[in-house]
């Protein structure tokens, strides 16, 4: 699959997207990068203990989010899905509440950052345990099918590393047997912390496993938000209309270390990262929009300023909020009393 032409000389293939939608995807990408960087900054300033990087994933997440139907679909993300979470309706404020572990956070400050959930937005709660969320996503898809809810589907995401987990396999298998309304989107960024693809799997194209499950499989350029949108939309539409599951593999790259606790120079070269930076989806899509007359440089600039302002406001607002109280520790163990001896 050829990468999308970003020279802008040919007519832009919009794949059914309106100009507003294209701009909205770009905004999502900028917002993801801004908030991602903000997390790292706050960590370096000693204000938050931890943050995860998602640079390189902006296009695949904005594209997927654009195909997601708010109020209907369910998202079962993993901890690198900052942009996807924003794209399905979470706000920068909610993101910062999570980073700062405040009481007003969806999880009451209990979860690691980037483990957002929101019943309202349809974002399922998940842990840091890779692949543990995928059977949950399959169960949610099964509920949709059992209730005969046409027009709804589950979008579940994970990285390349997660596809080695037994639960990834068990989930794909079950979804295929029951032709469930679910799309598995693998964000293949080539690294699982320090494990490169060739140590993770015996052949590098994850989409090729689809045939073994009896479902369609596709691979596409995850640095291209439009390409991503088209693929995810096709798969979600198939799921929503009773056509069963799809395995999608979007290729991208993880530009930063795994998290603020990782040092990627211990296991890969700066040259490799710099080489991949040439494909950075954020400046690329910016050029696409400008070259195709969808935004002017001034408008891009204004958008960036607005996002920065939004981020700053969200940061200040979240930071000012109180932590949970000690007594909050004991809530929600069970519906009833928390004590084991009764």
């Amino acid at each position, binding site marked *: 699959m050829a990468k999308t032409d970003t020279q802008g000389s040919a007519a832009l293939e919009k794949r059914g997207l309106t100009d507003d939608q294209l701009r909205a995807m770009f905004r999502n990408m900028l917002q993801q990068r801004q908030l991602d960087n903000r997390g790292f900054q706050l960590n370096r300033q000693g204000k938050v203990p*931890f943050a995860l990087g998602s640079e390189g994933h902006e296009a695949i997440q904005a594209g997927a989010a654009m195909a997601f139907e708010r109020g209907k679909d369910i998202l079962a993300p993993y901890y690198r899905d900052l942009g996807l979470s924003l794209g399905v309706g979470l706000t920068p404020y909610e993101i910062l509440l999570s980073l700062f*572990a405040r009481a007003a956070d969806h999880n009451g400050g209990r979860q*690691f950052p980037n483990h957002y959930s929101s019943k309202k937005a349809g974002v399922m709660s998940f842990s*840091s*345990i*890779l*692949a543990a969320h995928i059977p949950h996503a399959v169960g949610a898809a099964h509920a949709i099918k059992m209730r005969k809810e046409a027009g709804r589907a589950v979008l579940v995401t994970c990285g390349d590393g997660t596809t080695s987990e037994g639960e990834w396999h068990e989930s794909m298998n079950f979804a295929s047997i029951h032709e469930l309304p679910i799309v598995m989107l693998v964000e293949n960024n080539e690294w699982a912390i320090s494990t490169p693809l060739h140590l993770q799997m015996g052949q590098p194209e994850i989409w090729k496993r689809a045939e073994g499950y009896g479902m369609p499989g596709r691979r596409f350029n995850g640095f291209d938000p439009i390409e991503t949108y088209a693929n995810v939309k096709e798969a979600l539409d198939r799921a929503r209309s009773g056509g069963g599951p799809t395995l999608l593999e979007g290729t991208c790259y993880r530009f930063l270390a795994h998290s603020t606790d990782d040092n990627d120079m211990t*296991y890969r070269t700066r040259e490799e990262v710099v080489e991949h930076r040439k494909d950075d989806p954020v400046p690329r899509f910016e050029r696409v929009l400008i070259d195709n007359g969808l935004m002017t440089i001034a408008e891009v600039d204004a958008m960036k300023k607005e996002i920065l302002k939004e981020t700053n406001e969200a940061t200040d607002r979240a930071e000012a909020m109180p932590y949970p109280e000690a007594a909050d520790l004991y809530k929600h*163990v069970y519906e009833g009393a928390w004590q*084991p001896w009764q």
Partner: protein
Amino acid sequence: MAVMNNVEAVRATLYDAMKADDRTLILGEDVGARGNVFLISKDFINEFGPDRVIDTPIAEASIVGIAVGMAMEGLRPIAEIQFADFIYPAFNQIVGEAAKTRYRSNGEYTCPLVIRTPYGGGVRGALSHSVSIEALFYHVPGLKIVAPSFPADVKGLLNAAIDDPDPVLFLEHKKTYRLIKGEVPEGHYTIPLGKADVKKAGTQLTVVSYGLYVHWALDAANQLESEGHSVEVIDLRSIRPMDKTTILESVRKTRKLLIIHEDNKFGGIGAEISAMVAEEALFDLDAPIRRLCAPDVPAMGYAEPLEHEYMSSPALMADAMREMVKF
């Protein structure tokens, strides 16, 4: 004698083991090129090669399972689970397979396997990077479990674990990795599994603990000493097998027992110790046995007040000790 912290103690011991015996190998996530997320096996892959320092796919059940197969065929694998919180998919391989290999084959097949994993909180690790798991596993015959937290103990028990012909779960408290330093004897030595250590002698109260908390218990005991009280602190070090002799000897001397552990109270290690002491030394006690443990909630939260409420502290431990001494 060298002074080192617990990361260095684990690292040095593993290095020596890899050098001494080429049946030994390390497998786990990020152990090779990255050298483990705490840098325990940094550069090992350059010296010992990728055959013996294996960066595995993300697949905990098979990290342990493959290690079981290697052990059954005479290699000496040291499997690493990156954080104890990730161990649950491997539960069957540990409990149903490794622990039962010798028993079900009546000795024909054995499983000389070490599974190392960092556990414990106090590092803002939240739900998936803070858990204590020993209570889930110490119940299982056929499995051994150790949790040393002084560098000299770490080296001696890790050597013993590697030599042990049966599967050993080696628990490393992550907060003690860089926090706790101590003198470590040179050369190869082992500390037998099933032997606790009296870290501070005393006469009025026996405190049994392990992991990070044994250090805090010692701080608390020293505080009580300055107030004129004498508290004995026993570092369990070994959870299965567990040292009955040392515990009973101490309890018969002090006549009071306080068990302190980081794990949840209900069904934790303290429960077994309490039952054993009640069965064997009831009339040697002048006060009810007491356990100071985590509340019975699923996890310590990420937010600081939540973690703080879940965990104990030297001050809280000192309070408990004071109450018991005065009982």
